Structure formats: C-alpha cells, structure tokens
C-alpha cells in the first residue's frame, strides 16, 4: 500500500471547523442568527441598541447557570436545584447587606452558601451514590424553604451601606455600554471553555461522562471531581443570583422558580447530551440566546401571550430536531 503507517497515524479525521459545522450548537447558532435577521426586517424595534442591550442582558442569568449545568450534564448528572439555590443565595446576600455588612461580606456569604449547598449535593451523589435527580430534587425544595425561613418571606430591597455598589454591579454598564451581567457571562463562558478544553479537570469531567467506570479504573479521582462539579453548578447559580439581585434591586422568595427547566433546556439546546460526555460552554450561551430571542420576538411581534408557551416548547423540540435528522441520515 502507498499509505504508510506514519501517514495514517498523522491523519486527522476531521478538522475542528468541519466538526463544529456538524454540531448541534452550530445549527442552533444558525437558527439564532436567522431569527435575528428576520426580526430586524420584520420589526423596527428589534435591531435597536436598546433592545439588543436588553436581550443580551436578559440572556445572562440563564446562560451563567447553564454554564455550570453544562459541566454537570457532561458528567452525566443533572442539577434541579439551581433555581432554588439562586433564590437562597440572593436572599443570603440581601439579608447580610441589609443587616449593615459590606458588599464583600455579602457576596462572600452568598458564595459560601452556594458552595455549601453544592458540596452537600455532590457528596451525596458522589460518595453515597444517590441518583442526582433525587438529591437535587430534594434540594430544590429545601433551598427555597430555607430562603423563606431566612427572610421571613419578606421583600428585601434595602441593601445597607453598599446598596449603590450592588446596584451598579448588576445594573451598570462599565464597558462600551455593554451591560455588566453580559461581561460576567462572557468572562465565565471563556473560563468554562478554557477549563473544559485545556485543564486536566476538564478532561476528567468528560472522561467521567464518557465512562465513569473506566475513569475510576484509570485512577481519575471521580468522586472528588463530581463533588467539585456540583459545587460549580451551585456556584454558578449563586453568581447569577448575586448579579440578578444587583440588577433587580429587590429579592423575593420566588425568584428563580422554575428556572431549572429553562437552564437545562438551554444547555440541551446548545448541544449538551443528558446521557453525558458531550457539551460545550459556547453551546450553553447559544441555547440560552435562542430561548431569549424567541421570548423577545413574541413580545415584539405582539403574539398572544397564551401562545407563547407553544412557541417556546416547540423551539426546544425543534432545536434538537436538527441534530436528530443529521444523525438519522448518517446512520441510514
């Protein structure tokens, strides 16, 4: 044969680009872009600076949590508690600051709470082999209940001496008129992307999702990694909670209710596979963007509120349809 062993070994099967073009993330991105182009022509109000500012900002909260969720999903797990954890962390932040502590202490308390909750989830899942669905479903209930207990179920809207700092943190636009939450989202996405691709930790996350047993046998510290992953997921919810508190300027005990399903939808639309082993940080953003663009467009196009659920539900299914069709074509 003319092809030597060297050549075969050196061969790349597919370039990174062709791989990306074949991915679900790519098709969803195309859908988002097409939708944006369509809306720019169909309505006067879509392609305005103000609307784009709003859209990008609205995307962030779901997107930030979807980054953490993507890690969880890559390991083959799921985290249903994120909406409640967001609520709990916002409340801890609000109460701490309301009691007169500085913003640093408030954020530290919120982050600490998030890490604690995540560690609890993670330890039960990794060390006691609980099903992630069950543990985080329990936590969904517990975390919101604790937020009620902590706040005595009141609206907190006074954040003590650092009130304005907190509002600036979440509501300001420090750079080129881009909303701050968007900056955080981009930074966190780059960080997540970097971790997944370039660090040993990221490699292990994928390995666990691909074949947990194999990862254990080859000496990957599977349990430790899993605990960290659930801590990151809770942390991302906590960060979203802190930013959202700064944006909203008030915390009630029902913020983040039902958010878990939106976040999971965003991650899955962006290409994460609930069976584990597959997912990207970029996909999480794209998935969140698709959901927000649809929501925004329904408002702009003046579509009856009753129908909105149908469109959003339909979009969730359609996003995955691309991927299915491609797979079906390939296998037959």
């Amino acid at each position, binding site marked *: 044969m003319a092809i*030597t062993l060297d050549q075969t070994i*050196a061969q790349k099967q597919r370039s990174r680009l062709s791989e990306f073009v074949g991915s679900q993330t790519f098709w969803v991105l195309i859908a988002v872009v097409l939708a944006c182009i369509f809306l720019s022509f169909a309505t006067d109000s879509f392609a305005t600076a103000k609307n784009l500012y709003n859209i990008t900002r609205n995307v962030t909260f779901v997107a930030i949590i979807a980054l953490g969720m993507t890690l969880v999903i890559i390991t083959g797990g799921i985290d249903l508690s994120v909406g409640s954890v967001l609520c709990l962390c916002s409340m801890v932040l609000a109460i701490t600051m309301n009691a007169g502590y500085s913003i640093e202490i408030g954020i530290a308390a919120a982050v600490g709470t998030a890490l604690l909750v995540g560690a609890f989830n993670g330890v039960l899942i990794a060390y006691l082999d609980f099903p992630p669905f069950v543990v985080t479903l329990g936590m969904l209930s517990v975390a919101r209940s604790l937020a009620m207990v902590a706040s005595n179920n009141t609206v907190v809207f006074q954040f003590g001496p650092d009130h304005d700092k907190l509002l600036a943190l979440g509501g300001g636009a420090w750079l080129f008129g881009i909303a701050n939450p968007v900056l955080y989202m981009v930074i966190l996405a780059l960080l997540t992307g970097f971790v997944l*691709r370039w660090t*040993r930790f990221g490699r292990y996350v994928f390995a666990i999702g*691909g074949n947990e047993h*194999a*990862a*254990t046998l080859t*000496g*990957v510290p599977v349990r430790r990694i899993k605990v960290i992953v659930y801590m990151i997921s809770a942390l991302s919810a906590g960060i979203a909670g802190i930013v959202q508190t700064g944006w909203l300027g008030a915390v009630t005990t029902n913020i983040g209710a039902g958010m878990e399903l939106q976040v999971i939808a965003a991650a899955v639309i962006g290409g994460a596979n609930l069976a584990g082993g597959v997912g990207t940080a970029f996909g999480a953003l794209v998935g969140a963007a698709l959901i927000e663009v649809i929501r925004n467009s329904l408002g702009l196009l003046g579509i009856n509120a009753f129908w909105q659920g149908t469109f959003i539900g339909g979009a969730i299914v359609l996003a995955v349809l691309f991927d299915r069709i491609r797979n079906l074509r390939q296998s037959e």
Partner: protein
Amino acid sequence: MSVIAFPGGDRRSEIAGVWLIANGDGKPAGSGEDGRLAAVLELTNISKHFGAIQAVNDVSFSLEAGQVVGLMGDNGAGKSTLVKMIAGNFRPSEGTMRLEGKEIVMHRPVEARQHGIEIVHQDLALCNNLTAAANVFLGRELRRGIGPLKVLDYKTMYRRAGEIFKELKSETRPRDLVKQMSGGQRQAVAIGRTMLSEAKIVLMDEPTAAISVRQVAEVLNLIRELRGRGIAVVLISHRMPDVFTVADRVIVMRRGRKVADKSIAASSPEEVTGLITGAIEQV
C-alpha cells in the same frame, strides 16, 4: 509530523526515546544481572471478599522480572480481582504485597503506576467520547506551563500517542474518537497506556478476547518484547494456545484459590484444563 515510512529497525530506539522523555531515565529496570531473575513482586496470603463473596482466597505467589506468567481459571475464579488488587484498584482484605522486597500498600491506581505497575483492564476501560490520545493519557495527562497555571499539552500527547501506536504497529489515529474504532484499535489504545512509562510489571486482563488472529499475534509479540526488556507480565486469558505460546509459567485459580503454579515446560494444556475445571484437584 513526519510522513516518511517508519523503518522497522529503528523502532526499538524510538520507543526507548519515548520512555526517556516520560521518565527521565532510559535504563531498563528490573532485569537482573546475567539472566538471574529477581522477584519483583511478592504476594503473601492475599484475600479479598465482597460482602459474603470470597473472590480471592489466601493466594501467594511471586513475579520475577522478565517472566511472563499466564493466569488461568474459570469465569469468576477471581483472576480480575487479583490483578486489580495488584494495580491498586482494590485493597486486599488480608495479606501483604512486597515490591522489590519492600512492603507496599496502595490506595489508588495512581500509586500502583508510580511503583511501575501497569494494567490493561478486561473491558479495556476506555471513554468513547475521548480521542485515542486522551484515553492513552487518561489519569496522567501531560501538561505544560509555569507554576500552578498548567494546561494540557495536546501536541506532545498526540505525538507520543502516535509513537506508541507506531510501536504497536496499529493503524490508530491519536486524534480519532475511540467511539469510532474497531476492536483491534481499541485494544491498541488500552495497551498503549502501559507503554507510557517504564513499567516493572504489566498486568493484562484478557487482552486477546474478541480480537482477531492478526491482532492476537501482535499482542503476543508485544508481550515477548516486554519480557525482553525485563518486565514481568501477567497474562490472564481463557485461550490455552496463547498462554502456552508466550508464558513461562502458569498459575491456575479455582474458586478464589490458587490450585497450581508451575512452569509451562512442566505442564500441559490437558493438565491445566483439568485444574481449571476441577477434574484435577490441585498440584
């Protein structure tokens, strides 16, 4: 990367180069002077139970450098459990292990590797969603960078994995996902892991099940090469011919106990079959 065909004669030095880089130590270890074999590993009264199941029961034996030991036995006889203990996957319920005379207790597979013990698992232990190179380096990724900020060194890992596959004469592309690979290629990836560092002991748990004659021959050749380097090899197999072709010694287990441990020359397939099935009680 070089596209020139790889000349067979060079192979040995090339792979030694790989090890040199990996270990910073090119000297083959373990082979005693002028052919005298030294005991690399010694197991004494090793037992393992899972709840009520006594998987391994009071097994003692020693491995010597440059010796290939065939480990045979019925399904469930405890072979995999035994080698997993040596590889640090399980801790023995009882008994001690001595590596080059020093008692060792291992808590994690990484520690076994640090001691120079490598294993190819029965189910290959591959992650389908990762590339061949990623699988080879799983658990000991190469990284570069300064201080605490270290990133994965993709380039070097691809290159080294390529060199290892070349050494194995396997048409395996380091950048391909394992998911899409044939049985033989998967085998090459799993065996490739053992070649990352200068091992003293290589444990192979049914490396030849379900691969074709061609690849079987390659695996057996590889085992011979390991022996040539003074490495102790444990080969678990249900294939009598494999063991009798390549092994120096055969150990037979039945229901968790060691029932035979003798040199191949002094045994026969018939005897071993009898020992496995229980027709012969013990020798």
